[in-house]
């Protein structure tokens, strides 16, 4: 680690552990905790909810196609419970009688109305507040289009699934899409949704986007793919299988150790395994930013912060200073370092880099 040679910074580094101790004795110190973090669902929350529903309702298999809406209703309901402690109301109107009977038999209460999507969970807080809105897309769609459709690199809406585009206009804090296509089409659908989410990023710039792609023609859980997109991060929608989605956030210690291991092997330095390792840190850091960074921005705009998964943070006046303070206090790579403004202090490349 290269430390800037500023004497002032060195003084702060020496002082940090002592100041952290002061925190425990109740004396004001630079080590603080974000008091009002945003409630945000994680990819793991989604994976755990999906697994629980499959286990409890579908005998560890995937739901038959006509019961997709029943699955969506329960998932929207369970995810909303992770977001609020207030009383929630599930609004849904399943199209199939089979789904209606299935849900009723399992005691999931709902109001038979449609609001924004196929299933919506509301709370009342001085007015109706939409927590989760979901759509179930069971239409074979472009899979059976009579003519081959181009990939939507041109930005055309022609190939994006319409229920997905409709969902992006929803007003809930969390948007949920459940897609059921053939196993062969599921991966291609994931790419389409990634492109659709990227091209319409302005529509969900303040919402969490969750996607469950469950092949309609297999009961193999390993074929399920989960999409996760955090608002305003520029990272778009990213897909992972169900099993890796169950992994907890990577710790700084784990990342540092794995990177050292991969770097020791010359051939692993630019390997898919190293890419996956970076992706795990990337997603963790996006989560830290949305949960803690954005609330912090209001009071400390323009300053640099090292923020942990628990919401503890230290402020500095430069990336180097915040990074050094964060490494010293929390451990290497344990804190996300960002400037508290919309750019997060991320260096930008010119237009020629769009495909780098």
């Amino acid at each position, binding site marked *: 680690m290269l430390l800037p040679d500023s004497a002032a910074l060195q003084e702060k580094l020496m002082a940090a552990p002592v100041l952290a101790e002061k925190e425990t004795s109740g004396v004001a110190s630079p080590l603080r905790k974000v008091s009002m973090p945003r409630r945000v669902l994680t990819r793991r929350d989604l994976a755990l909810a999906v697994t629980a529903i499959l286990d409890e309702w579908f005998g560890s298999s995937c739901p038959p196609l006509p019961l997709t809406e029943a699955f969506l209703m329960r998932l929207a309901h369970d995810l909303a419970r992770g977001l609020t402690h207030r009383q929630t109301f599930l609004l849904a109107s399943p199209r199939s009688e089979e789904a209606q009977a299935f849900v009723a038999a399992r005691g999931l209460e709902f109001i038979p109305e449609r609001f924004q999507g196929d299933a919506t969970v509301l709370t009342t807080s001085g007015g109706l507040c939409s927590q989760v809105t979901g759509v179930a897309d069971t239409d074979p769609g472009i899979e059976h289009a009579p003519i081959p459709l181009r990939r939507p690199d041109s930005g055309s809406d022609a190939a994006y699934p319409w229920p997905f585009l409709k969902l992006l206009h929803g007003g809930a804090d969390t948007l949920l899409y459940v897609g059921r296509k053939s196993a062969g089409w599921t991966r291609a659908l994931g790419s389409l949704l990634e492109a659709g989410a990227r091209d319409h990023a302005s529509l969900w710039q303040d919402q969490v986007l969750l996607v469950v792609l469950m092949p309609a023609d297999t009961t193999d859980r390993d074929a399920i793919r989960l999409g996760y997109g955090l608002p305003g991060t520029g990272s778009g929608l990213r897909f992972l299988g169900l099993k890796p989605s169950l992994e907890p956030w990577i710790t700084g210690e784990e*990342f540092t150790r794995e990177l050292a291991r991969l770097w020791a092997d010359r051939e692993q330095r630019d390997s898919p395994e190293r890419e996956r390792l970076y992706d795990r840190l*990337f997603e963790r850091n996006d989560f830290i930013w949305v949960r803690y960074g954005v609330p912090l921005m209001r009071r400390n705009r323009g300053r640099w912060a090292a923020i942990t998964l628990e919401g503890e943070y230290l402020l500095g006046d430069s990336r180097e200073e915040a990074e050094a303070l964060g490494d010293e206090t929390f451990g290497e790579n344990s804190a996300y370092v960002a400037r508290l403004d919309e*750019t997060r202090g*991320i*260096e930008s*490349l*010119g237009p020629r*880099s769009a495909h*780098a």
Partner: protein
Amino acid sequence: MEEEAFPDTGFTGGVIIPRALVEEIDARPHWGELRLGNQAIVGASYWRGRVAIGDLDLPTEIWALGDEFIIGRKVLDRMEVCFEFGERVRLRFDR
């Protein structure tokens, strides 16, 4: 090794080297983020090092991305670059 490096006033950072070169670098990198021209953000390796051009020698971040050498504003802002009718490039350095 002799390679051309492109000055890029759209890049706000220091220096970018081709990603293929990471196999040659034994020092463990830092992890960082870069915002591409299409506003997508990507994770990338970077090192803290020094860049030396003529009389200029300054500390900067060196990123591994893409397949070109690129010099960004953190370096260019310390130089005067004069392109002379496609025949010559004259450099002057901030002291």
